[in-house]
């Protein structure tokens, strides 16, 4: 149970026990540092952690676990608030243009915010209106197939070949205008495969369609696939990450499987504050997020949810710069593919 484990870890204190790299300070060591960074009189009221997706989803759970740990470390009150609508557009715009920039509002965002800012915000706001203050975790996209479908035992390269020999026959679930689409498009362009792209409103709906044999391939994330892998219904074909991930050592990357590069599509979760938050408050919040992410219990909770910690982002000296570099990579993709001029 959550509580008991948290208590035991707070008492015995071991981040390393949860498989977190040694050498990082445990929660207690850095607390004086955090106290030193805490601006006088801040926070003067409970803080809000905005989530732009509905309660109960992956982003929401990530935020609630984080807020809880941050509360425990700092003693500050942090409330998770779901500002939903327009597949995240409403909440993103609120954070970028209307949220108070006094440090009392943070946003727990997913990198889908970049596509919103670059393709759909129509100049009303930009992703640079939101300053990253800490990296949380990543979820690389995975292609899953059923164990009794046409691709039951095929490696990804064979799947692509089959879809080239019989174009527009095999069905793949997609979410229009998003990384689901982009990854399929890359595979098609580089291998000559042609899929029937069946649109769904969310990745979860695509997974359900896969289980029900209404599509042959579903791009999805590990957490939603795991129960169906366990039941033997679903097999994973490849993961769209730069390297193989620790929790799925036998799953090849798209780059390996197709002998290419650039098949990298990952949900990245991170915390932002609105632009113009005073520097001392931003530094404090950033240190608080970083401290929370060193908490063994939190890392274990996230690990159980089946996410991946990208060392390049986790260990970056300047997480804001590292995340913004990822955003620029995405902008480059939009330019190259003619989505953005």
């Amino acid at each position: 149970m959550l509580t008991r484990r948290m208590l035991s870890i707070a008492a015995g204190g071991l981040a390393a026990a949860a498989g977190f790299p040694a050498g990082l300070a445990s929660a207690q060591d850095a607390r004086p540092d955090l106290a030193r960074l805490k601006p006088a009189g801040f926070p003067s009221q409970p803080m809000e952690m905005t989530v732009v997706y509905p309660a109960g989803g992956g982003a929401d759970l990530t935020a609630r676990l984080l807020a809880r740990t941050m509360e425990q470390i700092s003693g500050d009150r942090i409330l998770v608030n779901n500002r939903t609508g327009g597949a995240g557009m409403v909440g993103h715009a609120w954070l970028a243009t209307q949220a108070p920039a006094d440090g009392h509002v943070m946003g727990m965002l997913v990198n889908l915010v970049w596509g919103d800012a670059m393709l759909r915000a129509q100049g009303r706001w930009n992703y640079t209106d939101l300053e990253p203050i800490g990296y949380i975790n990543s979820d690389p996209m995975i292609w899953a197939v059923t164990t009794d479908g046409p691709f039951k035992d095929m490696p990804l390269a064979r799947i692509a070949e089959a879809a080239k020999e019989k174009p527009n026959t095999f069905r793949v679930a997609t979410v229009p205008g998003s990384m689901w689409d982009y990854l399929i498009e890359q595979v098609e362009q580089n291998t000559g495969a042609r899929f029937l792209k069946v649109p769904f409103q969310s990745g979860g709906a695509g997974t359900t369609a896969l289980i029900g044999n209404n599509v042959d391939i579903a791009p999805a994330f590990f957490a939603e696939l795991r129960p169906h892998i366990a039941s033997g219904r679903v097999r994973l074909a490849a993961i769209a990450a730069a390297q193989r991930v620790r929790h799925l050592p036998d799953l090849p990357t798209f780059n390996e499987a197709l002998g290419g590069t650039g098949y990298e599509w990952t949900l990245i979760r991170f915390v932002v504050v609105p632009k113009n938050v005073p520097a001392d408050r931003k530094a404090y919040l950033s240190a608080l997020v970083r401290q929370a992410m060193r908490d063994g219990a939190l890392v274990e909770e996230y690990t159980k949810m089946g996410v991946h910690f990208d060392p390049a982002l986790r260990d970056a000296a300047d997480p804001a710069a590292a995340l913004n570099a990822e955003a620029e990579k995405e902008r480059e993709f939009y330019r190259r593919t003619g989505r953005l001029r």
Partner: protein
Amino acid sequence: MDAFSGLLLGFQIILTPQNLILCLVGSVVGTLIGVLPGIGPLAALALLLPVTFTLPPVAGIVMLAAIFYGAMYGGSTTSILLNMPGEAASVVTCRDGYQMARQGRAGPALGIAAIGSFIAGTLSVLALSFFAPVLGGFALRFGPPENFALMVLGLISTLFMISGSTLKGLIMITLGFLLATIGIDVVNGQERFTFGTINLTGGIDILPLVIGLYGISEILTNVERAMSTSLVTSRIGSVFPTRADWRVSLMPILRGSGLGFLLGLIPGGGPITAAFMSYALEQRLSPHPERFGTGTIEGVAGPESANNAAVGGGMVPVLSLGIPGTPVTALLLGALVIQGIQPGPLFMVNHPDLFWGIVASMYIGNLFLLILNLPLVGLWVQLLRVPYRYLFPVVLLLSVVGTYSANKNTFDLWVMLGFGVIGWFLRKFEYDFAPFIIAFILAPLMEQSLRQALVMSRDGPMIFLHRPITAVLLAVSAVLVALIVVKPRRFIPGGGDV
């Protein structure tokens, strides 16, 4: 583990003071948020989710689930008393429930809603206990083509519901369809009719629309009519349903339970569609279809049973497959995940204590809700004695709070007020909202599933005939259309002035 030993285990787990108290708390909170217009189960669950972090997994889920089905009990209360749906799923209850209240029969309406909900809730938990794994597989067979056929059937059956002018009914259906096209196109991701505002990218939310159209316009109409009188000036009459009420309500309750459970299983179904289709079914089967809409008790018994049964049905794919059909069930799954429990096909095998604990709690919860709601009927009926000038500011305030709490977006309040004014005009010209609402709810699913089906089909529209479930649903729809065309006066009460 067979169902009997499973249930035994479940009751052993649930019959502890802590679990019983949490089940009771969930039932009370659920009833309350069901009664309060605007505040739905989703907002309440999101608010209480953090509380469950510190509880053992069974206890947390038991409480959240009780809120979910409790809301369906409470939802009918304001529909009947104030013509203002407490939940979107209780929209259709307004039609006959409110008319009954105006005739001094609010008590029987509330009573039959509570008892119907209890019977439906219990029957659906029985079905959940004994057939969950089989039924989970059935739910999976509903891919895009099946969903489309189901939506067609739903839409056709609502044609039976059109009261008054057929032409006006068809206008409302068309408007519902048109309004539902606002938002992001699911096939190509483009924005439609958003006029450059971010607030419309997700389309118009059903909650502010329903609260505005029903609640706010009702307030406007009443305030205009007479501020000084209470709602029911004459008599309140008996509180409990009569023997005759029972006789006519029993079959609607049973049919509503079956229909609601089946529709609850399917991702595209859910409590709202179930309530509407049950109403249409009862009207179709009734020897006196013309009485529907004028305060007939079958029009309350059927839909209120159906929306409760749909909650039980909705738990089947959640517990047997880990697949949520509605945002509320998605939140229940989230609560499990945060406890470190993986919902999915193996949930029953790996966590029999949790599975059967939740199922057992639903039997107990339904019993709590019946015991809680029957005495409340007398209390609620007294509410009608409160002069309207004191009542309406409170109702208005609750509507505003409830509507805002769902998305925390002030735009929703403008939508609510806008539709309040539109509803006020429509009432003056005697347009019925029900066809509009059902078209608005069905249209996005219908469009999406039609286009998905055509994309995944290798031979165009023939996909609808190749798949057995789809073919049967469409055939039934065709028969219904034929009935309407052949005998319009018999099947569209009051119709014929087209």
